């Protein structure tokens, strides 16, 4: 049983000796956490708006003020010509144009229907959708205001009062970072774990030292455990640092139990390392290992629900995410950290990830034997 600690010691020596790897392991994840948390932001801010006002009346001015007052829109220009607005859209200076028609005020006060026109640059569909939603809300509001001021007629009496009140739970301030940071922590430990472990055994192969290790009395399982233990510890250490940063810098609420988080992370790391090891056993050079790891990581990360919700994917894609360990961990972190879900709520995630860990590691060990004999 003394053999494993020796292998672990050797691995740690090698990790700390490699000067180009050290910054990658210890600095990069935190730069990533900081940059990603600020950059990975679908929150739509600073929408630029151009207004074409054909009416130039008190009412149209009031609508313009209302648009400016909400804070969603930044006015880039106001004129009565259409052309200037289109030019701004073409040059990306404006995101949308609001056109106020002739006789806007006159129609409004005489209760004639009048049509506003919104022209949105829709290359970014998300942004366009939100711009549309915001504008419509503002216009509806404006409408209500005007209606209230108009003299009440007999017909208006039938107005149906419905009060709508909306609440946002778990993230009352709608802070996007609160949503992203738990997921980014997952990304961080996954990348480190997968890259390091996938390049590890293959390196011994490339250099030829694997033959020497195979010739010693070290048993296969001791070798594997000894190889993986250091990275497992590193991964959990990174997670700890990451969580501390998340708490201190981003003020992420820890609603659920941290014990639960680390319990899950411990099993999850086994999966990531298992995948890395599996890649290591099927490749011959570090370059190949790196490419394959990169390829799968990109797919895993894109399909994890980290950046776009899994619920919005088509059914077949949702089925594929069942095989994606990253998706399980991202979901788990959000549930436990933000909503305070208990073990009861997440036990199926535990089950799935444990099963995954067993399968992938058995596969990797089987494959390792085959290549080394």
């Amino acid at each position, binding site marked *: 049983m003394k053999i494993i600690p020796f292998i672990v010691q050797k691995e740690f020596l090698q990790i700390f000796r490699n000067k180009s790897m050290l910054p990658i392991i210890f600095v990069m994840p935190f730069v990533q956490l900081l940059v990603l948390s600020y950059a990975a932001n*679908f929150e739509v801010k600073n929408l630029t708006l151009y207004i074409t006002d054909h009416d130039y009346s008190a009412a149209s001015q009031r609508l313009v003020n209302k648009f400016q007052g909400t804070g969603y829109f930044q006015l880039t220009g106001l004129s009565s010509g259409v052309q200037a607005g289109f030019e701004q859209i073409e040059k990306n200076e404006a995101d949308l144009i609001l056109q106020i028609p002739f006789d806007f005020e006159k129609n409004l006060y005489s209760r004639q229907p009048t049509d506003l026109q919104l022209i949105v640059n*829709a290359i970014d569909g998300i942004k366009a959708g939100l711009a549309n939603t915001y504008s419509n809300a503002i216009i509806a509001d404006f409408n209500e205001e005007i209606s209230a001021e108009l003299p009440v007629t007999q017909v208006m009496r039938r107005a149906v009062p419905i009060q709508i009140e909306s609440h946002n739970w778990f993230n009352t301030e709608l802070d996007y970072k609160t949503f992203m940071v738990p997921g980014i922590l997952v990304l961080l430990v996954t990348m480190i774990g997968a890259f390091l472990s996938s390049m590890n055994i293959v390196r011994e192969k490339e250099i030829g030292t694997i033959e020497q290790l195979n010739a010693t009395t070290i048993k296969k399982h001791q070798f594997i455990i000894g190889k993986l233990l250091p990275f497992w510890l590193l991964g959990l250490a990174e997670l700890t640092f990451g969580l501390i940063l998340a708490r201190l810098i981003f003020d992420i609420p820890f609603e659920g139990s941290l014990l639960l988080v680390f319990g899950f992370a411990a099993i999850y790391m086994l999966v990531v390392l298992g995948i890395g090891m599996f890649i290591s056993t099927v490749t011959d050079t570090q370059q190949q290992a790196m490419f394959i790891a990169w390829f799968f990581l990109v797919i895993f990360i894109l399909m994890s629900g980290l950046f776009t919700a899994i619920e919005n994917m088509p059914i077949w894609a949702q089925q594929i995410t069942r095989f994606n360990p990253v998706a399980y961990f991202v979901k788990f972190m959000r549930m436990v950290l933000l909503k305070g879900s208990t073990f009861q709520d997440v036990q199926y995630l535990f089950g799935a990830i444990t099963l995954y860990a067993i399968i992938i590691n058995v596969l990797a060990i089987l494959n390792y034997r085959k290549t080394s004999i």
Partner: protein
Amino acid sequence: MKQFIAFVKKEFYHIFRDKRTLLILFGMPVVQVILFGFAITNEINEAHIVFLDKSHDVATDKIKDKILSSGYFRLNEKTPRSSADLQEIFREGKVKVAVVFGQNFYKNMLTHQSANIEILADASDPNMATTLTAYVTAIIRQYQAEEQTITGGLIGTEVKMLYNEQLKGVFLFVPGVITVILMLVSAMMTSITITREKELGTMEILMVSPLKPGLIILGKSTPYIALAMINAVTILLLAWTVFEMPIRGSLLLLLAECLLFVITSLSIGILISTITNSQQTALLISLMALMLPTILLSGFIFPINSMPLVLRYVSNIIPARWFIEIVRSIMLKGVGLEVIWTETLVLAGMALLFIVVSIKKFNIRLG
């Protein structure tokens, strides 16, 4: 010239010998375009909803029907009986919105007292919460308008979505995918292939051959230019055939800009290879200094306008940011060089700078 062709041939042999890397090089663009096209979307699709109905009358039933038939929502199998149940249901994670109807809803509506509806959204995903709340509100308002004899809405809005009528996410992502793939092939692969010659010691042998150093570098990069352009065309074809993404501007201009970007990336790759000695370092530098910023800060996935000011400045020195802008403008807006000449000039300037610096560095190494 004959020697040069022979040299390029040798490079192609190197590339075609490594089947696994080759498979990934050609498989990656296809997989990524398909993923982005179908799976990576922010369109709301059957979000799970629950109702807590304290009235159970004609009006609430009608509203529920309207919400469920809108196509955006799907009734979850759980039915809350009290407000306390809601907390529980949200914590399980599936349900995104809950709509709570107040007591005596229909009666209040008829007697002109306020009829109350409460919309609760799981805002751990803020955008989703905002959008879903807006959808539910719009549906209720519509119901309200139908119940009134004259519509409250005097102002209609006509919305026109320019360049992308159906708001397809793939239109936004395709230019980014092209960028990342071109960067990967031309910068990362080149830097690795040149450092490999150094690491293995074969660079010395090439140096004493009659080929001039400039030609050696050119010969090493030619195959990657070809590979990168093949990839670019593959992605464009896929986008066009599978997702009906148009190329509204000039195809020739688009390909020329692709070539310009490939040359810019190549020059970065060459620069990296002149300052490193091992493949692993070259790989890690490419990954950290090129790929990550390209993906994160170029506006590929995340809008640059939403970033803090510092990151917006940083994004200016990333070539990909300019290239993505160019591709989007040509493909979707159909504009010509007269609109995108600034971006083109920036890219060309960057390429020139990197080439000059690497020639300087390269000469020093020879001495």
